[in-house]
Structures are given as structure tokens and as C-alpha cells.
């Protein structure tokens, strides 16, 4: 579809998001903090409300009408996710609290796979949530914690990876898209490299799920994880996909109810997948409502979302570069709608404060990626990130407010 048609189509989306239809400090809200979390469409909000109005019951246990109804809806989301990810088995989908939870789970259940002297790999651009758990695992197992360096352009140094990743690598964990810069990484190539080295491959898809179609079969990674709230879904819900044979082989993570088969004073046996990894009462409302987000993304089409956001990114980037003493990070073609920048001699927090006063919501600071900023020789940036519901008018308001802020601070 041509750009005008696309813009027209996407323009209608904004009305589906009630949180966007409000003023802050007397100004229309321009929400450009979508890499932190996206707003939720009405259908997701309605679903949460409907769950508590009609279906609330604990799942998988009760022998009554409501328990069966809520279980059915809960499991329907699992099936929708299996379809979305092209998983071979629906029990490969594990629900938890979020991406951070997933990485902590993986770094725990993979513990016995790592021996002293092995290597655990991440990249220099990882979010702390996909960095620190691996660092701690390496420390605990006396393994070597290694990282693929980031080039000044905000891309991986793949040549380094090609030379250095050998059969000593036991785990290779990396993000598909950088949360701080928006770089879309060549994960297919790194997965191939890591797999041929015989390593477990963990892909953090948190920043990718709202922009790209996902096929875990063609990716051929071992684990793929993301958070519902980054793709127009509820907060407090994470999705971990893992290859069935691995999830069956690896030990449980949290012990408790639901995840057991038989408990006695002499011993306990564990439940089958996915329940083995879903102890305790889950975030039922979020799982059920998340099905609406999955449908929303499917109906709008991630290809359309990405094309639209990319158009906004390019428009904003060009306008931004007209500002004097501006540094745009990772000004490269392979990006999602994330615009990370600094103005010389002005602190990012100051820009954020003044943008906020004008109704523009952005994020400032290190974005939980301190090693990345250390490489780029600074401590953080201003980050504007676009979602499918943002418009060219949002970009115009943002640029005008930014110019005003910079003038006040100079």
C-alpha cells in the first residue's frame, strides 16, 4: 500500500486508544514513550473489565462453570500465541511476569548446563535485564562472561562474533531490537553462528514483537521471550517460548501449586509442560485480555505498523538534524521507530522535563543500557519512540516543543 493510503489507515487507530485522548498540563498528550510501554486499545481494556465482571475464577482447578470458562479463555490466548510465533506445540508457550522474569528463569534453569571455563555471551547493547542475570550466572559457575562489542554506529561487531564465538560458548543471549537505539540486529546470522557453536540461543524479542512477524521455526533459536505490554497488551505478563525437548529436559524454576503432579511427604513429581513452569495463580486477566492485543496486531498488520512508524522516524530524524549541535544515535537504515539523541551541552533530563511541560512524553536517561552508553561516550539520551497510533502531527508537535526546550536551555 502506498504511503498516503497507509497514513490514512493508521490515522484511525488513535481513536481506539482512550489514554491518548487527553490533555496533560492543559496540552494535548503526545505519547512518544512507546519503547517503554505501549498504550492499550479499548478492546483490551474492555476484556479486562469483562473478565472481572463475568468470568473471574481460578483456572485449571475448579469443577464449576466459571472455572471452566476462564480456563478456556486463558488457554485460547496460549493457542493464539502459538499461532503468532509459529510454535510447533502450544505447551511451548510459558506465561510469566515479563521479559525480566523470563531471563531470570532461563539463567536459573540453564545453570546445570554451564561448567567452569565455559563462555556465556551477550552483546554490549543489551538491556540490563538480559545482561545482569547472565553476568551473575557466569560468576556463580566460574564461567567467562563475554560480549559482542557494539560499533559506534549502534550495530553489532559481527566480525568479532564470527572470530570469537567457538564451541566454548554455552549460552548466547541477545536482543532482536535495541531498546535504547532502535537498531534492528541481524539475529538470523548470530543465531546461525551460535547454533553451529553448539550454544543455547536466547532471543530477547521485547522490542521487536510490536513491529515484526515472528517465526521461531525459521529463526531456529532455542528460547524467545517478550512482554505483553510492549505490544498493546497488559503489564505484568511475559511470554517465554522454548523448544519442547529443552523445556521438558530442564529443571523447574519455581516450586509450588499447579506445577506438581504428585506431592507426598516422601517426595514430589512435577507436572507436564506448560504447567511445570507456571506455578501459582497466574495473571489471568492479563492473559485473557492479551488475546485482544494479538488480534489487534494481526488485524492492523505488523508490516503496516513498522512501515508507518519508520515513516514517522525518518520524518522526525530529518527535522531533528536541523537543530544545531544535535547528535542522533544509530542513524542507520535498519531501525524501528526509536529516535535516540542528545543536544551538545544540554542534559537529557532537562530536555525531558521541558518536553513534559508541553505534553510530550519521552524517556530520558540510560534506558537500562549503561554499557551501551559507556561505549558511546555518554551516560544517556533523550528517546522518542513511535507506535502505530502516532501521527505526523505528533512529530510536528514534538519537534516544535523540542525547539522551544532547546532555546530555553541554551
Amino acid at each position, binding site marked *: 500500500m502506498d504511503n498516503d493510503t497507509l497514513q490514512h489507515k493508521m490515522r484511525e487507530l488513535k481513536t481506539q486508544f482512550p489514554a491518548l485522548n487527553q490533555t496533560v*498540563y492543559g496540552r494535548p498528550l503526545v505519547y512518544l514513550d512507546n519503547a517503554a510501554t505501549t498504550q492499550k486499545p479499548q478492546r483490551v481494556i474492555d476484556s479486562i473489565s469483562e473478565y472481572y465482571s463475568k468470568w473471574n475464577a481460578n483456572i485449571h482447578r475448579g469443577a464449576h462453570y466459571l472455572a471452566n470458562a476462564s480456563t478456556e479463555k486463558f488457554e485460547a490466548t496460549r493457542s493464539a500465541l502459538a499461532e503468532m510465533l509459529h510454535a510447533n506445540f502450544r505447551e511451548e508457550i510459558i506465561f510469566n511476569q515479563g521479559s525480566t522474569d523470563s531471563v531470570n528463569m532461563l539463567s536459573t534453569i540453564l545453570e546445570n548446563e554451564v561448567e567452569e571455563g565455559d563462555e556465556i555471551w551477550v552483546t554490549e547493547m543489551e538491556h540490563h535485564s538480559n545482561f545482569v542475570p547472565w553476568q551473575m550466572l557466569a560468576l556463580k559457575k566460574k564461567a567467562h562472561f563475554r560480549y559482542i562489542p557494539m560499533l559506534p554506529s549502534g550495530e553489532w561487531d559481527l566480525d568479532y562474533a564470527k572470530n570469537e564465538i567457538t564451541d566454548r560458548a554455552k549460552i548466547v543471549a541477545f536482543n532482536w531490537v535495541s531498546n535504547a537505539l532502535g537498531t534492528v540486529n541481524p539475529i538470523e546470522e548470530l543465531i546461525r553462528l551460535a547454533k553451529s557453536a553448539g550454544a543455547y540461543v536466547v532471543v530477547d524479542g521485547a522490542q521487536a514483537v510490536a513491529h515484526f512477524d515472528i517465526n521461531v521455526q525459521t529463526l531456529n533459536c532455542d528460547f524467545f521471550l517478550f512482554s505483553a505490554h510492549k505490544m498493546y497488551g497488559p503489564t505484568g505478563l511475559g511470554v517465554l517460548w522454548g523448544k519442547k525437548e529443552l523445556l521438558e529436559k530442564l529443571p523447574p524454576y519455581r516450586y509450588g501449586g499447579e506445577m506438581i503432579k504428585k506431592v507426598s511427604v516422601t517426595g514430589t513429581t512435577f507436572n507436564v509442560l506448560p504447567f511445570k513452569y507456571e506455578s501459582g495463580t497466574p495473571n489471568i486477566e492479563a492473559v485473557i485480555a492479551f488475546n485482544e492485543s494479538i488480534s489487534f496486531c494481526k488485524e492492523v498488520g505488523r508490516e503496516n505498523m513498522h512501515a508507518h512508524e519508520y515513516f514517522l522516524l525518518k520524518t522526525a530524524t530529518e527535522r531533528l538534524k536541523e537543530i544545531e549541535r544535535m547528535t542522533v544515535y544509530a542513524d542507520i537504515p535498519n531501525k524501528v521507530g526509536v529516535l535516540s539523541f542528545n543536544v551538545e551541552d*544540554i*542534559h*537529557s*533530563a*532537562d530536555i*525531558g*522535563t*521541558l518536553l513534559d*511541560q508541553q505534553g510530550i512524553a519521552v524517556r*530520558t*536517561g540510560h534506558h537500562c543500557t549503561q554499557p551501551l552508553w559507556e561505549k558511546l561516550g555518554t551516560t*544517556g539520551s533523550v528517546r522518542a519512540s513511535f507506535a502505530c497510533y502516532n501521527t505526523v502531527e505528533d512529530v510536528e508537535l514534538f519537534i516544535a516543543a523540542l525547539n*522551544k526546550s532547546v532555546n*530555553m*536551555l541554551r
Partner: protein
Amino acid sequence: MIEQKQQEIIEEFAFFEEWMHKYEHIIELGKEMKGLTEEEKKDDLLVAGCQSKVWLKASLEENGTVKIEADSDAIITRGLVALVVSVFNHETPHEILNANIHFMNDIGLVSNLSQTRSNGLAAMVKQILLYATVFQAQQKSN
């Protein structure tokens, strides 16, 4: 005295009707403040701050009052720091510990100081109170 200084700030800010003028004034205060030297802006004087950093130095003067110097790497935070310094500076530990700090809320800049961790102001006020507690104990033991 602390209450009087707070009232003066509140009156000063009551003049500004537009957010821009309010912030321009804060930025001006930030630019005017003497602050700390680059050598002093080290980790041992760093009170906290996630997005912007705040450094704080306090000493007990011979006349029994507390001398406070501070700084920040962000200019708006620096202006807010200047306001906090002006309220607490040259007061006795006893007055500092018994003060009710409300001016930030009243001028509509920081709605809840105790919750505002990101700019380091809450940590700064807490650190001033800690210094005052130590200085008061020193005064009593002398």
C-alpha cells in the same frame, strides 16, 4: 526562618503564570548558583539520582549553623537544588530537623518530593537531614 524562606519562594513563584516563565526562572537560578568545583563533584559527595546527578557538601560552622553547598549535572535540577540550598543553608541542625518542607509542592514543580527519585532531590533533602542529625549529636556531645 526556614518557614519564612519558604514563604518568600512561594511568593516569588506566584508571579509566574506560564510554565515557561517558571522554568526560565529555575534555569536562571541554576546558572547563577556557585555550586561545587569539578574536583568536588566526585562519587563521595554524590547523593543519588537516576537521570540527573546531585552532589552535596555540608559542614557545621563555628556559629552553630550548617553550611550547605550542592550541584547537579542538569540545569533544571541545579535550579531546584539552588532553592533547596537557599532554604536550609545557614540554619541550625535543630531548625533543619524540625522544618516542614512544603515549598516544592506549593510552587507546583515537584508534586511529591518523597516520591521523586529520578532527579535526586528527595535524596538530597534526606541527606541534609542526616547531616543535621549528626551535627546535632556533635553539638550535644561538645
